[in-house]
């Protein structure tokens, strides 16, 4: 029996009044895959990710994480998901360690396991010396690293990241990419929403290009390039999104 896909989205739709932010979107993150989620500003990427994390209710469609539906409270689904939002939502007055302890408890991770994972992740992300400090003193990059550690504490089947590289220094960005590749190698799923096309090109197994809430293209970089010569992903992205605008 094959393992269910870490993420399966069918006919996802979200409207804000007359604006259709996400329009009948189908999406799948396969086991062991890093899927890049690309699109211009306002394409509906963040809305999609938030619906997949249960923070927004879709008007239509369904989301399943590792085969568990997200509809209703979707606790089984949420327990298998790690989400790093575009803005890290952190408790400013807690220290990094206290925050991670809280998140570990919320995900029912045993304290010994939390300690072990925090030790490992904080070491790799160079966060160990800062974990005793209040989060309010953290820089944007440190906040993103803290949110990433929190999302990984329960070793989720699916990790979703919304613009994760924005505030990270080169070392942090490299560590993050290594972490994502390791997860994919273990058969887990990763969905990365990013504006950085070179990152998507180097990191992702497949990409989905979204525009005006609709899927514009999907496939591996090679598949998308097929019949278009030696185009870079940037050229491809601009061409695809320009075609749509026209």
């Amino acid at each position, binding site marked *: 029996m094959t393992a269910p896909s870490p993420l399966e989205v069918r006919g996802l739709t979200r409207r804000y009044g007359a604006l259709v932010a996400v329009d009948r979107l189908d999406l799948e993150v396969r086991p062991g895959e890093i899927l890049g989620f690309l699109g211009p500003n306002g394409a509906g990427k963040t809305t999609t990710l938030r619906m997949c994390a*249960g923070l927004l209710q879709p008007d239509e469609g369904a989301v399943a994480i590792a085969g568990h539906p997200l509809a209703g409270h979707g*606790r089984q689904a949420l327990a298998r*998901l790690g989400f790093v939002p575009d803005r890290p939502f952190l408790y400013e007055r807690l220290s990094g360690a206290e925050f991670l*302890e809280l998140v*570990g408890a919320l995900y029912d991770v045993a304290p010994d396991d939390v*300690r072990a994972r925090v030790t490992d992740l904080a070491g790799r992300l160079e966060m160990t010396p*800062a974990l*005793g400090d209040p989060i309010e003193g*953290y820089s944007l990059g440190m906040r993103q690293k803290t949110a990433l550690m929190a999302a990984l504490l329960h070793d989720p089947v699916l990790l979703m990241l919304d613009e994760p590289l924005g505030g990270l220094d080169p070392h942090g960005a490299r560590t993050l990419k290594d972490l994502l590749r390791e997860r994919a190698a273990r058969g887990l799923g990763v969905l990365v929403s990013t504006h950085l096309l070179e990152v998507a090109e180097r990191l992702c197994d497949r990409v989905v290009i979204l525009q005006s809430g609709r899927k514009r293209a999907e496939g591996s970089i090679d598949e998308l390039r097929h019949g278009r010569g030696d185009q870079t992903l940037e050229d491809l992205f601009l061409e695809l999104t320009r075609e749509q605008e026209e």
Partner: protein
Amino acid sequence: MLAAGVLRGRFRLARASFRRSASRARPAWADLILVALLGSAMLYGTGVVFDRLASRGFTVADAGTVLGMILVSAFTALALFEVHLALTTLVLDSDLELLRVAPLSPVQLLAIKLFDAAPATGALFAVFSIPAILSFGRAYGLPAWAWAATPILLLGLWAVPLGIGMALSLLVLQVVPPRIVRETLGIISTLTVTVVLMANAFFMPRVAEDARAFAEALVVLGHRLAGLERWMPPLWATKALVLASASGTSNVVPSLGRVALVAAAGMASLAILAWVARHSLDPVMSRLASSPTRGRGRRDAIARIGRSRLGTGRSAALVRRDLRLFLREWPVLGDVAFAALLWPVAALLLPHLEEDASVLILQTLLLVLSIGMGMEIATRSVPLERDAVVWNRMAGVPSVRWALAKGTACAILALPVVAIAVVLLGLLLQVSRPAWVGAALVTLPALALSIGIGLWIGTRFADRSWTHPRGMIRLAGRLLSGILVLIQVGGWLVATQLLGTGPLILVPIAAAVALLVPLLMATAQCLDGQWEGV
């Protein structure tokens, strides 16, 4: 040119603030209504005082002593409140970075921020000083030229504490961390403004009822204020108004001279602020923009994970989180404690209770304190989480469990205060042991129910982008919360009076506990509907 452009933008923003917006907790007209209500309370209180003084034959000099006291107290309160508001605007506004990189001089930047803070600082000033001067002028009469000079007096009195206070704050900010300065000012200003408002609007009219006692108090007060007259601009303003009221052409020049003195003091104060800003604003702003030093926290932070005495489960973690947040947000905790303690003080000011009604007094005070405390803590416990509240949803924590854990944390914080009040008030009022136990027995379910109601209000009316403890709940929520405190206290008092201390008292207690369940469910439902706003 640039400053004019920025000012035009500020005017547009001010105009837009009157419209409803998702990013603003309440439109500006709601603030105006609140200012009008508080101003009316002050106008009523000071009107009663000056009318009584005039009808009982007190001289204009006596009335001037009272006016002087009101203006001095308002001046002191405003010195703190204005500075706190202006400082909050200067330190926390979202457009600060944008303005800092614009080619504006420190003085221009400060002027823009003072312009932003002016409606709030001016409104509070209007609430305190204008009603007192209006009431004095109505009771003792002021000539037209004095009324015409009054706006100059008011502007001077507004500018003096703002200029000196902000200048001192900028100097302090170079040494002390901004958060500590802002939060300390927040607590002190809340305390001072509330005490001044209550004293002038509620306490003074009652003191003025007894003419003899009031006359004696005036003599003492007059001596005290005389010593301060040389140093206090509000006393210069008072003297100007007293001289004007005494009429006679010989008083015009000395009176206007004092008006000019107040105006000069205001201008000098702003000039000092401009000088300090030119030298200190940039370093202070740079300090605000830089992050605090890192790596000073506990070295064994990771090793301490999961070592809490409260346990390691989900609910324990939620309770521990709330306790940590409350105990570290000490301005919020201070504001909660102060607001909760004000309820019993207000209860003491209003009714004339009989001296032998010690059981009723004990019961009333305990109910008011526990319900006020429960509501204040619970309503604020929700916005205290800010947007990080979404972790509860992302981790799939059932909302009812979240509400229960939050209620437990609120009870842990409120119970020690209520327990101390039960013991102290019982001893002070010397009530019998059965009455004492009965009062305590009713207090606990009243506290639990108030926490449940407070949580519901918190989830329904929280402003998660709050920058000040008083702004954590939207105005409608605060008004509703106040009304519900009164209804609960009234309900419990009626129930205890009707049912006595026998077994029948268990009926409302059981009902209160039963009501908690639907309340927590309603709270959970409100929370579930909030994720979209994050």
